[in-house]
């Protein structure tokens, strides 16, 4: 029997939540590599690392903002972005915003004792904001998908 749009959206919704956890783990582990060799960012390997981070950040932000499933039908995408999902996304972005503000305050304080470069500051704030938004969204989606 063919899958209905609702069933497809339900399946993709679960897959998206699982994928966001995995992508968040990849994204955060990528930072370990960046900070372990951040003094060597002028080489082509360093440029590659920065480019990979920028691209992944942009893709994750786009995925968060649109809900993903870009190649699915309009009906499935509408179901994938229904009322609950939009609410979860708003909460994710709000938490990401607060995480970014708190991180910025933290860096400001640290910078009083040890200088932090502009690039590192942007890198840390953006990474934490995206990771917190993703993890909040994924956690809320997983929780909502559990059987009542």
């Amino acid at each position, binding site marked *: 029997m063919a899958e*209905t749009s*609702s*069933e497809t*959206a*339900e399946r993709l*919704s679960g897959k998206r939540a699982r994928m966001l956890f995995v992508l968040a783990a990849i994204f955060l582990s990528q930072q370990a590599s960046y900070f372990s060799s951040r003094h060597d960012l002028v080489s082509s390997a360093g440029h590659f690392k920065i480019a990979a981070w920028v691209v992944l950040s942009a893709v994750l932000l786009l995925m968060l903002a649109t809900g993903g499933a870009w190649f699915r039908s309009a009906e499935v995408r*509408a*179901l*994938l972005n*229904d*009322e*609950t*999902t939009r*609410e979860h996304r708003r909460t994710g972005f709000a938490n990401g915003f607060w995480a970014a503000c708190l991180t910025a305050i933290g860096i400001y304080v640290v910078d009083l004792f040890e200088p932090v470069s502009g690039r590192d500051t942007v890198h840390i704030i953006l990474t934490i904001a995206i990771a917190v938004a993703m993890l909040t969204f994924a956690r809320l*989606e997983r*929780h*909502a*998908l*559990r*059987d*009542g």
Partner: protein
Amino acid sequence: MGERLANGLKLRRTELGLTQAELAERVGVTRKTINTVENGVFTPSAMLAIKLAEALSVPVEKLFWIER
């Protein structure tokens, strides 16, 4: 004291012999949304509340009420 929007969604849905997925299909949302509304985790918009009431053939004020 806090107020919350309570609902009789699950009761009415089971009375009609509908699954969460079937009700979701009727109102054009995912089962996840029905699940969160039933559990009181998510407060639906006025639009969704009316759609749910229509789908379950019950006045909206019988389906949702404020609990104090």
